[in-house]
């Protein structure tokens, strides 16, 4: 067993459990109560990446995320209740009920948005880092994206951009092996890490289900990026334990694969085991989960109690110039 800081380890577990509980609560609200309006994409099984990487970020650092963004958003420090309200499309949702799960964002904690278009967040992240450099700031930007996203053009354009302009950014590819119902390797020639190497970015390949390893390596990498201002790349191998969306039974996966991964590689279970081996009691570990579940249940209750956004907010925040209502109906 590795020698590690129990307190930190517990903090990491706590954040992972919160993300897990948020998503399990959201899934329940979607499936059993039909309260979640649009599709939601769960990161269950991938929490270690969000938690390990963001641990070394400051509140004023930036991240961009994907359609699968709950974990990143919570890890960056967003408020779970505002997020849950957003999933239910309610007043007080972090996007005022206008975006939903796929556009979850909290600019107050540097979370510049999930994205409904695969790979689109990569050039945006490169730009955020570019802006930081122009403004003379020392913030680091982290861009989370999936293995499937690395087949779209903006991936190449974005990492090349970061290399050319020497930008303070960490690209994190969460390789969960699937792109919707497709095994990503079937539609990928060569591999993603080599693509980043070809651009000249330092690449760290890592076990994406080992939060300790990710946190340790990320601390080094992010410190280096802050010091040098130069881009790096991380490839985290992980697994999506659920379906692509909450209503996807994921029957395209080989029989037993998900079960095996759940048994062997669930990052939350692994971290629990590690802490247990380090002497933390089962009771204490269970308390972490119970607390997280209670927090998210409270968030859901608050969301359920919240009203719909006022009708006339539909014309807010379209643009300053020109009336959105004009010409209609």
């Amino acid at each position, binding site marked *: 067993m590795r020698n590690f800081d129990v307190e930190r380890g517990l903090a990491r577990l706590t954040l992972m459990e919160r993300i897990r509980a948020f998503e399990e609560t959201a899934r329940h609200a979607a499936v059993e109560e039909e309260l979640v309006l649009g599709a939601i994409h769960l990161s269950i099984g991938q929490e270690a990446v969000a938690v390990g990487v963001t641990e070394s970020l400051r509140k004023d650092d930036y991240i961009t995320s994907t359609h699968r963004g709950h974990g990143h958003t919570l890890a960056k420090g967003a408020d779970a209740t505002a997020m849950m309200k957003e999933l239910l499309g309610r007043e007080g949702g972090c996007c005022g*009920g206008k975006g939903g799960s*796929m*556009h979850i964002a909290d600019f107050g904690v540097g979370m510049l948005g999930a994205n409904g278009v695969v790979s689109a967040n990569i050039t945006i992240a490169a730009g955020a880092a570019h802006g930081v450099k122009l403004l003379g700031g020392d913030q680091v930007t982290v861009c989370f994206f999936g293995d499937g996203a690395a087949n779209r053009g903006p991936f190449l354009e974005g990492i090349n951009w970061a290399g050319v302009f020497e930008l303070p950014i960490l690209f994190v590819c969460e390789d969960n092996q699937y792109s919707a*119902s*497709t095994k990503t390797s079937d539609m990928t020639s060569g591999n993603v890490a080599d693509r980043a190497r070809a651009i000249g970015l330092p690449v760290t390949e890592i076990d994406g289900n080992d939060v300790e390893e990710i946190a340790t390596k990320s601390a080094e990498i992010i410190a280096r990026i802050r010091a040098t201002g130069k881009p790096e790349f991380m490839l985290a191998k992980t697994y999506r334990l659920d379906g692509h969306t909450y209503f996807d039974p994921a029957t395209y996966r080989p029989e037993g694969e998900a079960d095996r991964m759940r048994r062997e590689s669930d990052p939350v279970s692994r971290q629990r085991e590690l802490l247990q081996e380090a002497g933390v009691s089962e009771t204490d570990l269970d308390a972490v989960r119970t607390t997280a579940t209670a927090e998210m249940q409270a968030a859901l209750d608050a969301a359920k109690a919240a009203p719909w956004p006022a009708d006339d907010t539909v014309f807010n925040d*379209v643009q300053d110039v020109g009336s959105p209502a004009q010409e*209609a109906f």
Partner: protein
Amino acid sequence: MTVMTYAEAARLAVAEAMRADDRVWCVGEDLGRGGVFKQYAGLPEEFGPKRISDAPISEACIMGAAFGAALVGTRPIVEMRFADFALCATDELVNQIAKARFMFGGQSRAPMVIRKPMGMWRSSAAQHSQSLESWYAHIPGLVVCCPATPQDNYSMMRAAIECDDPVVYLEHKNIWMMEGEVDTSLKAEFGKAQIRRTGSDVTLVSWSHTANLCVEAAETLAGKGISAEVIDLVSLWPWDKAAVLESVNKTGRLIVAHESVAVGGFGAEVVATMAQSTTFKSPPQRLGSPRSLIAYAPNLEDKLRVTADMIAGAATKSMESVA
């Protein structure tokens, strides 16, 4: 005549075309599992992975590669999954596919069907709900189809696959499961509207799902003693100007309704063309979405939606006012 859904109707047309012509094939993400809306269900089993082909998440390349494959003699059906994602392949569609035949002086053809499921669908929010048919109608070289019923999704798909021009084929996501009778002996003619209901007081022009709402509105109006003619354009390029003109000449009143944004929408083309060609008994009206983004919360989404009631209301108003 068989009853089938809007999704099944197109699937049948695709399957029949693929049986008849080896050169027809489909390409898009996740098609091997039948497509995200099951529009291709069963086809992977029948035709195998080469002809119902998966693709990397590479919209630009799906579009560009299908075009290249069309240039050398195949007849691709391109699946864009959501019309919104097709924006990742705009250069390929507009600068390459639409222009190739002309630019190369007639040396080449791009016989392709480009399927783009469009429209509002269960709180999908701003990036998964758009209707941009007016964009494509504005681009020389493209044919644009917006079928509203199972029958038209069958007969128009047949015509689209047979066409030697690139066809932008916009299916509405909200009606995949809509059922209707389909006569499989029919093939649509581009630019030939469906008169979904005849009437003498007011002309309702529409396409895609909103055409169904016009039919609903016409029923309501009939109850109030207003006789509405419903014209479903089915294709926007070419569009059946003659049918609309004939109807407006009869009724003197025109309402054009569509789900897409009113400003710069194709409804403006219809109203402007009629204003140039005839006179009205009362001012023509356009119904479309306000120039606002599509929101997630259902009450906000509803504020952006044209309804059968609104169409009926506009028609009623047109009976009261005079030009």
